[in-house]
């Protein structure tokens, strides 16, 4: 199969579960794969599932996974003919994409021009308006306080004052009433100026109770651009998705086809090729939807789309990058059954989702579900990168069965040694509103604020812990307790002084 490819070796410019996932797609296509890794990732799972691995720098991402010269150097050194960026790190960096192409390598992603067009939020909004893709009612232009006030009066409240150059909620203020506008404009301008060196502001209608629904698109280099239906991603904490599913329980056929058509129009407006995702906010009250942004890369939650459509998205990313035509048409694609994904994070869900580290002491995945993991037993989870460890994905005939399968899979997952969110995910999925499919992007924040794992300790837990302390050596020594934290001063975890 590899002989019809213009390349036979792919450099994976990423780490963790997504690097492992891409390596699997390479293998399926008979392509050799090359991993890159930082000093902190020596021996990591993603370096073990590839044909070769190249050290590209110290732990700090700036000096390794975000270091364009180092990544390109690894590609050259290994003789790779293509670069797959995964998600995060350099995946949406148009300069990197261009540099890959300038080095004579195949970029497994969209054209840099499309990445730039979608990366500038103000420009993207303009383009979408021209393409007839619905955007939130808003105002952009002369942003003197007087003009903004007049525009706000027309838009109505609540509204959002937003940095034109912004992203990630920086330089952004929710304004509930006219009286708050002056202060919000001043504050947003200060923040925008210091964060982006650009104090331009725009206004946008604010949706208090919105759903996040996105559409997967896939295009080849011969003019075929298709959608692979939607994903429902409203279950979020800290503005980050934790559970995704498809189909969305909110959509009916009419809304689905309108959103999917808008997504393909959005992608077509920037001459998109390869895989990408168009994100929308949906107002559940009016069932109106609005363009949020386009992610010009592979998405974390792509497995649910693969499970329901049967299309291996990563495989097709490599194939269309190689110049192949998509062999299926829009009408060939259907959604079969229901798929759901949960993201397993190294974090303390009961303490503001603070990232956690540690050694994976014991790891047992549940059977009959899809596992996308970046960790293995015995490995350390560090503090340098995103704390997502793995994804569990299930596929069933309908939503009810998918939900049940996911709850069973979470309960069967044994991940010991690193504090993680598996118990929290089980609590979320046990909620009746989640079972009913009735939630919005702030649902978790509202419903699970101050969540704590049940503090009760069943007798068998205590008994088991004590039983495990019974070793001949221990019994002999029971006079002096070697495990006493008071004996060792600070930190009494084995390996605590390792780093």
């Amino acid at each position, binding site marked *: 199969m590899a002989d019809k490819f213009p390349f036979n070796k792919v450099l994976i410019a990423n780490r963790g579960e997504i690097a492992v996932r891409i390596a699997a797609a390479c293998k399926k296509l008979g392509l050799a794969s090359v991993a890159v890794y930082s000093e902190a990732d020596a021996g990591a799972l993603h370096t073990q599932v590839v044909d070769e691995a190249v050290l590209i720098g110290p732990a700090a991402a700036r000096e390794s996974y975000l270091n364009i010269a180092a990544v390109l150097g690894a590609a050259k050194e290994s003789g790779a003919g293509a670069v797959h960026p995964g998600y995060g790190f350099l995946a949406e960096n148009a300069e990197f994409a261009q540099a890959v192409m300038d080095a004579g390598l195949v970029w497994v992603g969209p054209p840099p021009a499309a990445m730039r067009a979608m990366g500038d939020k103000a420009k993207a909004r303009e383009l979408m308006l021209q393409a007839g893709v619905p955007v939130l009612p808003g105002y952009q232009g002369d942003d003197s306080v007087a003009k903004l006030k007049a525009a706000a009066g027309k838009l109505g409240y609540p509204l959002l004052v937003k940095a034109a150059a912004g992203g990630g909620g920086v330089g952004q203020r929710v304004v509930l009433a006219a009286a708050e506008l002056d202060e919000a404009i001043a504050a947003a301008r200060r923040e925008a100026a210091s964060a982006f060196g650009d104090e331009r502001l725009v206004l946008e209608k604010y949706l208090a109770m919105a759903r996040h629904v996105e559409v997967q698109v896939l295009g080849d280099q011969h003019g075929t651009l298709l959608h692979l239906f939607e994903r429902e991603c409203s279950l979020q904490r800290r503005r980050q998705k934790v559970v995704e599913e498809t189909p969305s329980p909110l959509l009916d056929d009419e809304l689905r086809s309108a959103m999917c058509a808008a997504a393909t129009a959005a992608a077509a407006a920037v001459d998109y090729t390869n895989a990408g995702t168009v994100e929308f906010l949906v107002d559940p009250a009016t069932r109106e939807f609005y363009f949020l942004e386009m992610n010009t890369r592979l998405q974390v939650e792509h497995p649910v789309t693969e499970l329901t459509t049967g299309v291996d998205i990563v495989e097709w990313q490599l194939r269309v990058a190689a110049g192949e035509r998509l062999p299926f048409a829009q009408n060939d694609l259907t959604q079969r059954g229901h798929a759901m994904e949960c993201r397993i994070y190294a974090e303390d869900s009961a303490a503001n989702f603070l*990232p956690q580290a540690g050694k994976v002491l014991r790891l047992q995945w549940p059977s009959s579900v899809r596992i996308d993991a970046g960790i293995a037993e015995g490995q350390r989870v560090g503090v340098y990168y995103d704390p997502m460890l793995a994804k569990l994905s299930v596929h069933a005939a309908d939503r009810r069965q998918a939900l049940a399968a996911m709850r069973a899979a979470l309960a069967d997952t044994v991940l010991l040694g690193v504090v*993680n969110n598996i118990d929290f995910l089980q609590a979320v999925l046990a909620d009746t509103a989640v079972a009913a499919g009735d939630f919005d992007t702030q649902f978790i924040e509202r419903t699970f604020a101050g969540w704590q794992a049940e503090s009760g*300790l069943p007798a068998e837990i205590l*008994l088991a812990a004590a*039983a*495990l302390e*019974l070793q001949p050596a221990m019994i002999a020594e029971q006079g002096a307790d070697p495990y006493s934290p008071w004996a060792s001063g600070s*930190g009494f975890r084995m390996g*605590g002084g390792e780093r």
Partner: protein
Amino acid sequence: MKFTFEHSGQVHTLELQMMGEVLRAVVNGQVHETPFERGQPLILNLNGQPVKVAWAKDGGDTWLHVNGRTYMLRRTAGGRAGGQAAGGERSLRAPMPGQVRKVLVQPGDEVAAGAVLLLLEAMKMEVRILASQDAIVAVVAVTEGQSVDKEQLLVELEPDDGG
């Protein structure tokens, strides 16, 4: 023998006896008996109910997975586990593993309750370590750029007696 564990900030104590292949434990005045063989998973049998326990140990920490839930128990010394011992809030420890981004105080500094003592960063999140009370900084146990584990000592404070 007597064992004391901490779980979710609470201290639990039990008495354990091994009688042949049977474990006899007293938890909160209640007696439990179960056949016991150390294995993976550990299988207990309480009141005719088999219980499968996946487990891992890391020094004094024991991780257990039972009925879909994960527990971490930390072995503590019997009599002093109540947290009454001197130290308490005077020893400020890392709430998460990470890197020390900035150290803002040095030994001998007088600090007011709520003052920022140092900044800790992990995975793009910044956490400020604040003085728990009006105090004098006794020890700064870390330096800028250093990696720290969760619970690692950062700063020791001496209460300010208002002298």
